[in-house]
């Protein structure tokens, strides 16, 4: 580090020491997490797992991350929950030094109203880890790695009231377990044309979008929904990539564990102008997300129900239905198999039950009645009457239909859903959105219908049309980039249409 870097640190430290602040800690439900790793233990762990930065300046920045100056970076940011390096296999001296450093840092963070959670990278003595965390005045622990379920259970037991958050690889393993905060590994949000990936698509092909929106919404089937944290580390990320990661998690009510890459953090510490600007933009997206927390209370909108069975062994395949239906812009709600009641299905126009394999006698009766009353049921071969050659057969049942697939797969079903359902069935239909994923929520009587749109290309999209079933009096578009604007409403054969002139990255249209 150069002299100017040290000077700027000293100046910052001076100002920080002049502005002590003690604030109440936010409740876990309001935690906005940021990965804030550093100290000697982080370097030791990185050395072990061979991810130590090559640049000495970057290593130096990580080593000194728990100097109070770094707290100043959070001065104007909604991020209020620091995930700090806490436990990993290392030399006892390194371990002790790290814990002492973090303890002092956590005290300073607490004074600023910031929660501090300790990252545990590898299993160890659960009692010791919990006791040390208690002494370190941490607000919780985050398990970040692969852990045996026995260790996780033991840690939760000895942690008492201290929150233990496990970052899971697979959402399905957590979906049916009640927890105040669920953390799950996600993807780096992005989109690419198939041709860029060397894949020759079809005329109907759309860009390959990596998104976590489906993942967050997959937990929103109970009440209240848990807080969902998405963990992903972006690679070679631009400013817009970071902003997109925030928006992608937040659109359906989740939160991205803000994770800046090492080089960016080193430059941030050095007060690099362009990086500070990137950090401000990221913070503006966090602010936009956190200023719309009321939308988290809106349940996902959808006339299509996708029924999931917690007992099914292949949960990853079941998740693909949720992922690919979201990509095809199908507004759906998740229905747990146990929640499949006459009253529950009355709120749907269509049910995808390919994961009920086979449906029980009572479920079959319920679904048959649903179809006879005008509903659409999409079933797998266990329903009976599957075709021998065609992908599916459509059977008229009373006022409705049952579609029986020979061999359903998520990609084919998601693609077909778009054509099997009318606009009325879908309720919300977006046009000109090849690089966009939409997420609709609310829409119950007395509630606004909120349609959020997220663009996964770096280029803006122009002239997106939303066609919504029903009559509305106003439509207001809000984006992190500009002031809210009212969109003109059009009648379209009894439905309502609005056009969004330009979507840079994230927009929310509220229809009332």
């Amino acid at each position: 580090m150069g002299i100017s870097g040290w000077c700027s640190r000293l100046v910052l430290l001076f100002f920080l020491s002049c502005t002590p602040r003690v604030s109440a800690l936010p409740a876990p439900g309001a935690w906005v997490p940021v990965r804030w790793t550093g100290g000697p233990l982080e370097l030791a762990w990185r050395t072990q797992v061979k991810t130590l930065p090559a640049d000495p300046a970057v290593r130096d920045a990580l080593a000194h991350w728990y100097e109070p100056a770094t707290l100043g970076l959070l001065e104007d940011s909604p991020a209020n929950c620091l995930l700090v390096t806490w436990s990993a296999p290392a030399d006892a001296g390194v371990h002790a030094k790290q814990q002492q450093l973090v303890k002092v840092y956590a005290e300073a963070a607490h004074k600023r109203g910031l929660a501090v959670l300790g990252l545990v990278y590898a299993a160890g003595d659960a009692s010791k880890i919990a006791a040390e965390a208690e002494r370190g005045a941490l607000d919780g622990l985050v398990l970040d790695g692969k852990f045996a379920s026995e260790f996780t259970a033991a840690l939760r037991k000895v942690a008492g009231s201290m929150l233990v958050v496990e970052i899971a690889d697979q959402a399905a393993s957590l979906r049916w377990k009640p927890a105040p905060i669920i953390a799950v590994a996600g993807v780096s949000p992005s989109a690419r044309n198939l041709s860029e990936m060397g894949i020759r698509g079809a005329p109907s092909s759309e860009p390959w979008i990596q998104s976590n929106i489906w993942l967050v919404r997959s937990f929103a089937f109970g009440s209240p929904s848990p807080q969902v944290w998405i963990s992903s580390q972006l690679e070679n990320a631009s400013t817009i990539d970071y902003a997109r990661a925030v928006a992608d998690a937040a659109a359906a009510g989740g939160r991205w564990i803000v994770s800046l890459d090492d080089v960016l953090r080193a430059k941030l510490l050095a007060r690099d102008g362009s990086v500070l600007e990137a950090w401000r933009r990221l913070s503006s997206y966090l602010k936009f997300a956190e200023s719309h927390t009321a939308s988290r209370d809106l349940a996902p909108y959808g006339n299509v129900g996708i029924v999931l069975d917690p007992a099914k062994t292949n949960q990853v395949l079941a998740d693909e239905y949720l992922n690919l239906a979201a990509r095809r812009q199908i507004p759906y709600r998740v229905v747990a198999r146990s929640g499949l009641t006459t009253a529950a299905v009355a709120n749907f126009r269509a049910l995808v039950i390919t994961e009920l394999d086979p449906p029980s006698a009572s479920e079959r009766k319920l679904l048959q009645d649903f179809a006879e009353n005008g509903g659409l049921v999409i079933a797998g071969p266990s329903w009976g009457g599957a075709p021998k050659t065609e992908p599916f057969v459509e059977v008229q049942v009373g006022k409705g239909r049952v579609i029986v697939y020979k061999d359903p797969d998520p990609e084919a079903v998601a693609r077909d859903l778009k054509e099997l359902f009318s606009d009325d069935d879908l309720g919300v239909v977006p046009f000109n959105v090849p690089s966009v994923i939409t997420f609709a929520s609310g829409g119950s009587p007395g509630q606004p219908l909120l349609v959020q749109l997220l663009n996964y290309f770096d280029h803006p999209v122009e002239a997106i049309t939303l066609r919504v079933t029903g009559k509305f009096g106003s439509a207001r578009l809000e984006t992190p980039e500009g002031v809210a604007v009212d969109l003109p409403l059009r009648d379209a054969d009894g439905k309502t249409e609005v056009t969004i002139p330009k979507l840079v990255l994230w927009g929310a249209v509220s229809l009332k």
Partner: protein
Amino acid sequence: MRQGVTRRDWLALSGLAVGAMAVRPAQGARAVSTAPAEPVSVAKVRTYDQDLTTQFRKMFDQIGGIDSQVKGKTVGIKVNLTGGGGFPGYTAGDTHWVHPRVVGAVVAAFGALGAKRIRILESAGGRKPGYKLEDKLLSGGWDVNTIRNAAPLVEFEDTNALGQGKQYSLLKVQGKPYVFPAFQLNHSYEDCDFFVSLGKMKNHEEMGLTICIKNLFGITPLGVYGNRETVFHYGQVQAPAGAPAEIDPKSNRYEGWRLPRILVDILGARPVDLAIADGIVSMVGGEGPWVLGSKPAHPGILVVGRNCVNTDAVAAATMGYNPRAARNEAPFRVFKDPKSHPPEQLQPGDEMFQYADNMMLLAEAAGLGSADLNKIDVRGVPVKDAMFDYEAFWKNQMPKEQS
């Protein structure tokens, strides 16, 4: 060794009689006939933000005026759409559909000329209940209402099915057909007094070119034919009962031979009164972003003519291609992805041997219009001044200042 005509060749030959270039006739094409040759207008237009309505009025005048044919008449415009998606930063209308502002301007121009009714036509719908052509246009980011309001009466019809008609129209090939003697089509292709093919100037993976002749492929309704690929491209199945059967079910099934002839048959069954080629922004290397190696381009060209074959020939020349090129010459030596074509649709050898016959020469041989630049009166901007060399751009060989 490539035998296509390069930009340099064109510049060298520009002072000579273009028709004197040594070219072979397309394989299988009949002897050159005295096919009609009418004026074609070429314009250099840099962006879609220009006053395109005035531009089209000027070009219509350059080809002798269309006022009397349009006034008080029903005009059908077959617009060139295809699959969706897009290159980053481009809309479908920029690169692989005709641009909505071109459509709006053409509609406005026809409206100003007194057209009674203008129908925008394309076969767009799939299985989705209640799907309309307007939905497809919205999916490309079109301002449908602006187009609807550009003339007193503008209608949209998805011609993949019956639409507003009660039955399909049977349109017979005028003259001697190659493959199909007639086609069953949506009523709008018969119920119009003035028919316009509004195509995009772009490459095509299997046919080499998409302009105004190729644009007509989309008038064949899936409601009748079920699957264009199996019935028309490959001839794997015959047209369903009730639809006109092909003349010789044992004829060559290779799409490079078969489809250009079918395209000429379609043009013979539904002659075009006005051909408009949109090359203001376009793409090279394929007909949509799904084709590997394709990319956007900014040729800045508009071409308008009364005769569809003449217009395509001139448009092809402005794209840097020899409109009389034989199979295996650019752009008709094609590069088909082996993974997305049935094995029997790939010529023995390797991809170097894939080809398409020149649909313009086949149409010329059928007497539908001349593909001979020496016989076509090009008005407006000369071809050599309008030219954007698609092949060079595709191969990254174009001088930077021109690309």
